[in-house]
């Protein structure tokens, strides 16, 4: 089993720091979800793991070895992202042979089956494939390559709903047969929420959540009811976002361990939150401040 440690990783482009002191440990097999808003640095982070970009600070270690200029460590990894490193005239079969030549033990049988399911012809060359088919090809490579840490950066971009479903099934199938470390970075959080057993959320240069999915969801609540009571009761817990919804009704998002015997006041409702809603609340500027600013503006307007 391969392990990976990301130690105090930072990245600065010119004067802009996009990632600061990132610490992550991948010590067991699983499907890790990597979430964050556009531009937060997910793709950069994944690129640094495969030594495509160098960090400003910190190290990435695979099985205890630094990945920097380390071919041995790097051949345990595979990154699938938006780039297509293969030439227009390279055929699908050739690409699979290349992957086999470098990583060995490429699962040709399974790959061929998957290509059929995704509607990609083996003898086609890259230039003739549509964007969706190119994505499908890259997925087939990623799920059949003999690597132990596989990273997928926006794997379902451009895929229709049917193929997305197919991808999730195939991911789970190969994971069941050969458990390893999968890191999936995606914006479609609700589609993948049940697949991932570990959640990592990056926001404003830092890791804000790094925990098992069950643990995360267990602490995610939505408290709603009359504004004043919501505020009064919610005050006892870690409120991460709040919004005034309609008239005197308000709502807060809580991320906290609540006591199991908690008595919720009668007019208030406490619900569990799904992963995507939690993510939005956690990575949005405080909606309550925006809402109150807006209502102040309206009040001025009416005067």
């Amino acid at each position, binding site marked *: 089993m391969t392990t990976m440690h990301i130690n105090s990783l930072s990245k600065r482009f010119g004067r802009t720091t996009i990632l600061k002191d990132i610490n992550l440990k991948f010590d067991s097999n699983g*499907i890790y979800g990597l979430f964050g808003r556009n531009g937060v640095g997910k793709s950069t982070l994944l690129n640094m793991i495969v030594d495509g970009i160098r960090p400003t600070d910190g190290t990435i270690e695979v099985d205890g070895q630094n990945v920097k200029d380390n071919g041995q460590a790097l051949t345990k990894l595979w990154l699938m992202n938006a780039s297509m490193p293969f030439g227009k005239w390279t055929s699908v079969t050739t690409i699979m042979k290349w992957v086999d030549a470098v990583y060995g033990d490429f699962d040709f049988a399974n790959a061929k089956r998957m290509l059929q399911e995704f509607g990609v012809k083996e003898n086609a060359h890259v230039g003739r494939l549509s964007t969706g088919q190119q994505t499908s090809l890259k997925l087939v490579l990623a799920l059949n390559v003999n690597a132990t840490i596989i990273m997928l950066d926006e794997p379902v971009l451009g895929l229709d709903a049917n193929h997305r479903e197919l991808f999730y*099934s195939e991911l*789970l199938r190969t994971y*069941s047969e050969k458990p390893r470390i999968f890191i999936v970075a995606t914006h479609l959080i609700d589609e993948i929420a049940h697949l991932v*057993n570990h959640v990592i959320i990056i926001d404003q240069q830092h890791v804000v959540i790094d925990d098992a999915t*069950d643990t995360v*969801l267990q602490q995610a609540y939505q408290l709603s009811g009359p504004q004043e009571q919501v505020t009064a009761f919610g005050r006892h817990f870690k409120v991460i976002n709040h919004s005034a919804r309609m008239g005197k009704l308000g709502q807060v998002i809580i991320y906290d361990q609540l006591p199991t015997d908690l008595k919720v006041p009668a007019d208030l409702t406490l619900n*569990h*939150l799904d992963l995507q809603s939690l993510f939005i609340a956690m990575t949005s500027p405080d909606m309550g401040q925006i809402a109150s600013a807006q209502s102040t503006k309206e009040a001025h307007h009416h005067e």
Partner: protein
Amino acid sequence: MFHFDDSGPIYTQLADQLEELIFTGVFQAGDQVPSTTQVSRELHVNPATVLKGMNRLVDDGLLEKRRGRGMFVTKDARQQIMSKRKQHFYDDYIQSVVTEAQKLGLTEEHLIELIKRGYQDDNNAH
């Protein structure tokens, strides 16, 4: 078939829904339940989560592992579910009915009337 929402951990919901299928007789004693891999793939749920749910049913004595073959419904699974639900019937159903009835101002007698009517309608339907 299966439906998951935000009401609690997925593995709990999965275990509950499987339990329901055993209770209603979809899976009979000695039947093999779908494998972890199958469930994982069909429902798009992480295999570890599926396993956790299945293991809860194993711990509760509703499923048993047969090495190399899979998971099977135990002989007295249904009876176990029945007695557990009977025990919890008061907490799960009666309390909320009484609370609601009181909110609506229904008397105890009226409630008993309604319960009697419920049994009659049920008998007539069969």
